[in-house]
């Protein structure tokens, strides 16, 4: 694969916005109102970074920033999906002030009870070292070990460590690439009957239709 150069991304095809845009379409399947982030400076800014691919380079008024802290700069992002996702790649863009790009990212799958004390003891499903400059053009994709990321209903990302020694980390865009299967975790609506009643064919759909029914 040729080294990435200006105007061309690291994907091994000639990246046109449409192609990549379709691939990075998992943002549509996120339950956006249940996305939450611990240690963010302005509540709700975590939702701003989950947006369409073609908007990835646009600046945000409220990017996702962690609270200022000299010791640890961490963000714990919880992303629930409204179906089952097979996650193949993650793209992280940080276009904030120099030194605020995060250095590490850890992913956890299908947990809804994580907070900082818990993640410090829990081994991550996968871990990445992020590029120091924050990938400002969005050309770099961090691949996942797909076998571990199938059937994902919720994703937790621990983004930490300001690479340039700043006292907060900032993320401008988060892109998720993969496949989506509509598999809602909700109650099934069923109709139970103690015994079949011939008059039910109006009330229960599907009864009375099909070749095996004798009228």
């Amino acid at each position, binding site marked *: 694969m040729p080294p990435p150069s200006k105007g061309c991304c690291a994907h091994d095809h000639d990246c046109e916005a449409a192609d990549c845009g379709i691939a990075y379409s998992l943002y549509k399947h996120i339950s956006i109102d249940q996305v939450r982030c611990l240690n963010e400076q302005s509540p709700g800014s975590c939702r701003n970074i989950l947006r369409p691919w073609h908007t990835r380079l646009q600046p945000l008024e409220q990017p996702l920033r962690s609270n200022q802290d000299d010791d640890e700069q961490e963000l714990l992002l919880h992303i629930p999906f409204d179906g089952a996702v097979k996650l193949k790649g993650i793209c992280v863009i940080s276009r904030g002030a120099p030194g605020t790009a995060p250095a590490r990212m850890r992913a956890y799958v299908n947990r*809804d009870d994580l*907070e900082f004390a818990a993640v410090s003891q829990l081994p991550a499903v996968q871990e990445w070292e992020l590029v120091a400059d924050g990938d400002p053009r969005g050309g770099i994709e961090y691949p996942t070990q797909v076998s571990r990321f199938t059937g994902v209903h919720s994703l937790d990302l621990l983004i930490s460590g300001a690479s340039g020694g700043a006292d907060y980390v900032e993320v401008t865009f988060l892109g998720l690439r993969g496949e989506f299967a509509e598999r809602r975790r909700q109650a099934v609506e069923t109709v139970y009957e103690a015994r079949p009643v011939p008059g039910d064919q109006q009330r229960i759909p599907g009864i009375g239709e099909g070749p095996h029914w004798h009228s």
Partner: protein
Amino acid sequence: SSLDRLSELPDVFRRIGNISAMECTVVCIDNSEFSRDGDYAPTRFQAQADAVNLLAGAKTQAHPEATVGVLTMSGKTPRVLVTPTPDLGKVLNCMTNIEIDGECNVSSSVQIAQLALKHRQNKNQRQRIVIFVCSPVTEDKEKLVKIAKKLKKNNVAVDVVSFGAEDENQEKLEAFLEAVNSSGNSHLVTVPPGPVLSDVLISSPIFQGEGGSGFGFAGGVGGAGGGASGADGFEFGVDPNMDPELALALRVSLEEERDRQNRAAAAAAAAAGAAQAEGAGAGVSASAAEGATAVAGIAGAAATPGPVAVPGVGAAGVSGDMDLDEDALLQQALAMSMEIDNAAAAAQEAAAAANDVTTPAPTAAPVVTPGAPQVAVAPPPADLDVMDEDAELQLALQLSMQDSGPDNKEDQK
């Protein structure tokens, strides 16, 4: 294009999220020896308990899935009395069993509260700790700030109510609040001795919620005005959401009572004027007031100001009445004195009919009116609704004449 529109979605959802804040709240109570102090009536601890009851009610009202838990800070170790629950009854119940003992340990209490919040059943709930402090905080400022930063990092909002030891704690608590506050989700309320603790809290941001989304009954307090008791947050002390029929019935009976008071006051003044015309003097005006009391004596705790007020009106004497609204009352008195002569016989019959009907009003508490023996035969509201205004006034006069005339008693029944 529609793709562009998608990027606007996060804003919309953020706004919607703010309106209904579903919260899990853990209330930390100061039950140290300092809370025995009586500078907040009746004791600091009791004032705190009242405030906690109101707060728990408000939180569970604001959202059907909101939960409230209770933790005591003093004693050997801080103890969680109630794990966060949507059941208001459990919270109210546990408040009665708390003992006063020892000294507060704020830092471990807050850590335990944080644990209780971490293990909340519904992870979508926001986390909040409400701390009542009425004793000097022993931890130093740096330690408090460190705890606050940890809370902020884990998205826990904190409300602090400081009373009793406000001066000593002010600096520490302000530093704590500044460290834990994340865009205005945390508050510090300092209550000086004097006003009722619950009242001050009701109008504070702790009850008002975040971002202007006020809890339901804050408006009810403003609207309660008039006869409602001040300490209760709800009009008539009844939650309109929990028991709408009762709240409605109480409100209707209060309005009916007010109407009757107005009419009875006019009747008393008119009767007093008429009595003057008849030359019976102050005695009749007093009994006219009692008669009016019998007419007015209907229903409910809220009505007890009424009967007390009306005799005051009558007892103030004829001149007092006349001063209030001289011209109008004079006119009425003249009109009534004309009618009285004509309708004396009819009034007798009306009184006899009324006395036969003794069923009390369905919503009425037993009527407590001062003095008059005739009050036992208080006419029911159902009848009075049917009677028109003139008939009511005649009835009032009749009753007052019964008082002053013992001979008439044999005429009844």
